[in-house]
């Protein structure tokens, strides 16, 4: 869909966050210079078109006991990527799963981020992924330190 200047006004305001007030969108609509009705209609359309992928809150998962996570990378034969990618995406503990560029000496083409409450559960999930996919060649890139974590911000592109 084409995103016009008024859509961008809605997008920019929503990124400021939704207030804990009875009518939280009134203030955002005012700041966007739009009527409340137009703001809501545009928001619904952005959601319908998938520009807004998810309307929701972002949580700090470690505060909820989801404390173990690891980036797993897998070497999957090209003609099997479709099956394994779909399989991993169906695992509830997998949040992100993408295929990515490989390099000579770095042949891992499928990346899956796995989360669990404990290291033991994490290990169990990964062993199950290996068993069910039949992919033996994989590495766990454990996090040693989180160096930066921020919410992406989007602005109307400068022409």
């Amino acid at each position, binding site marked *: 869909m084409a995103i016009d200047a008024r859509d961008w006004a809605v997008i920019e305001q929503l990124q400021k966050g939704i207030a804990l007030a009875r009518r939280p969108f009134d203030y955002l609509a005012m700041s966007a210079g739009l009527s409340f009705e137009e703001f809501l209609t545009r928001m619904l359309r952005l959601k319908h078109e998938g520009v807004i992928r998810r309307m929701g809150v*972002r949580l*700090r998962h470690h505060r909820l006991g989801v404390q173990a996570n690891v980036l797993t990378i897998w070497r999957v034969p090209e003609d099997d990527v479709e099956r394994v990618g779909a399989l991993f995406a169906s695992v509830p503990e997998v949040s992100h799963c993408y295929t990515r560029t490989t390099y000579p000496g770095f042949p891992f083409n499928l990346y899956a981020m796995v989360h669990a409450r404990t290291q033991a559960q994490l290990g169990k999930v990964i062993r199950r992924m290996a068993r069910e996919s039949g992919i033996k060649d994989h590495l766990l890139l454990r996090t040693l330190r989180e160096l930066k974590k921020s919410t992406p911000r989007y602005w109307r592109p400068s022409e």
Partner: protein
Amino acid sequence: MDELDRRLLNLIQEHFPIDERPYLQIARQIGSTESEVIDRMTSLVERGIIREISPVFDLQKLGYCSTLAALNVPEERIDEVAGIVNARPEVTHNYLREGEPNMWFTVIAESEAALERVLQAIERDANCGPVVDFPAQRRFAARVVFDLGGPDGD
């Protein structure tokens, strides 16, 4: 956290209502009142469980580009290089990981050309070998939603 908090979080992780009175809609779905939903969410924000109430956008549909990139940084330069990488507003996440390369970061930019410029600038400023670019080709899953389970937390 009690059962109502869990029901609340399970719902609003994915389905924050687009409505004049979103907290009233939430209250109706979990069997509560608008003011109780607002009070409980306020408390969850204060306790640091809710980080932010805002939508997740599809960056490609907004015309943005992104990639995962990595540097192999010698142990003694990790803090210094992390400072250089993190200073770029285009870098949204950065993790020190086991193995080689060891510093993995995600970058977003308005165009492929802008993305390339950011990677080149990081490579120049970090001065510890090439920035290796691992752009995504296919997305199978991208969600950060967790089932908080029932009263037993399982």
